[in-house]
C-alpha cells in the first residue's frame, strides 16, 4: 500500500505563546458570559411574556368585576330591606317589598344572583353554617333556614348564605358495618 502520509501537526500540539493563551482564556470567559447573559435574557423574556399575559387577564377580570365592590357594599342595604319587609305589615309591607324587588332587579341586571339555599343540601362553597337545628322532616345536612341571604356576582361568590343546617345529635346517619358485632359483650 501507499506510504502513510505524514500527519499534519495539529495546532494544539504547538505550544501557545503567552499572549495567545491569554487571549484564548479571555475568549472562553467572554463566551461563557455571553451564554449566561443569553440564558438570563431568555428567562426575562419568558417572565415578561407571563407578566404581560397575566396583566391582560387581570384587566379583563377588573373590567368584569368592576362593580363587585359597589354591589358588595349594597348587600347590607338589601339585608335591611329584608328585615323591614319582614317586620312591616299590610300596605307598608307590600310597598317595601316592591322597593326590594326593584333594587334586586337592578342588581340582577349587573350580575347579582341570590344563592339558592333553603331545603338544599349544605354546600360549604356557597353556604356558611351558623346554627344547627333539629327537624324530623329533613335529613341531616339540609339547609333548614336562611339567616342571611347569600349572593354570587357573575358566578363568583360575593357573600355566602349564612344558614341553619339540620343535624340531629343522636341520629347516626353513617351506619358503620359491624357496629352491632363489635359491641363489648
Amino acid at each position, binding site marked *: 500500500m501507499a506510504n502513510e502520509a505524514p500527519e499534519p501537526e495539529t495546532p494544539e500540539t504547538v505550544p501557545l505563546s503567552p499572549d495567545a493563551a491569554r487571549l484564548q482564556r479571555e475568549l472562553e470567559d467572554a463566551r461563557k458570559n455571553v451564554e449566561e447573559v443569553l440564558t438570563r435574557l431568555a428567562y426575562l423574556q419568558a417572565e415578561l411574556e407571563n*407578566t404581560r399575559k*397575566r396583566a391582560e387577564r387581570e384587566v379583563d377580570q377588573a373590567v368584569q368585576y368592576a362593580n363587585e365592590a359597589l354591589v358588595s357594599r349594597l348587600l347590607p342595604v338589601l339585608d335591611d330591606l329584608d328585615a323591614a319587609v319582614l317586620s312591616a305589615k299590610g300596605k307598608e309591607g307590600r310597598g317595601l317589598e316592591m322597593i326590594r324587588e326593584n333594587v334586586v332587579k337592578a342588581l340582577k341586571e349587573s350580575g347579582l344572583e341570590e344563592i339558592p339555599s333553603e331545603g338544599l343540601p349544605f354546600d360549604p362553597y356557597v353556604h356558611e*353554617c351558623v346554627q344547627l337545628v333539629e327537624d324530623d322532616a329533613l335529613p341531616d345536612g339540609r339547609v333548614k333556614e336562611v339567616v342571611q341571604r347569600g349572593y354570587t356576582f357573575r358566578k363568583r361568590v360575593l357573600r355566602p348564605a349564612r344558614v341553619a343546617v339540620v343535624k340531629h345529635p343522636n341520629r347516626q346517619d353513617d351506619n358503620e358495618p359491624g357496629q352491632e358485632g363489635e359491641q363489648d359483650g
Partner: protein
Amino acid sequence: MSKTAKIIGIDLGTTNSEAAYMEGGAPKIIPSAEGSTYGGKMFPSVVAFTKDGQIIVGEPAKRQAVLNPERTVMQIK
C-alpha cells in the same frame, strides 16, 4: 427553552395562611380560588375532612366547621 421552575413562599399561620411568588422582583400574593378573608388575599388555616371523603381547605372549610367540628382542624399551631 425549557420552562423555569417557579418558587413560591408559603406562610402557614395559626389563623390565616398565604402563598406568594416573585414577579418582576417583587413578591405577589396568590389569591385563593375559594375566596379570601375579608379585606385580604389570605385564607383561613382550616382543613376539613367530610364524611364522604372530601378534603376541604380555607374559607369553605371554615364555613362548615359548626356542622362538622369533629373533622375540622383549625388553630393548629
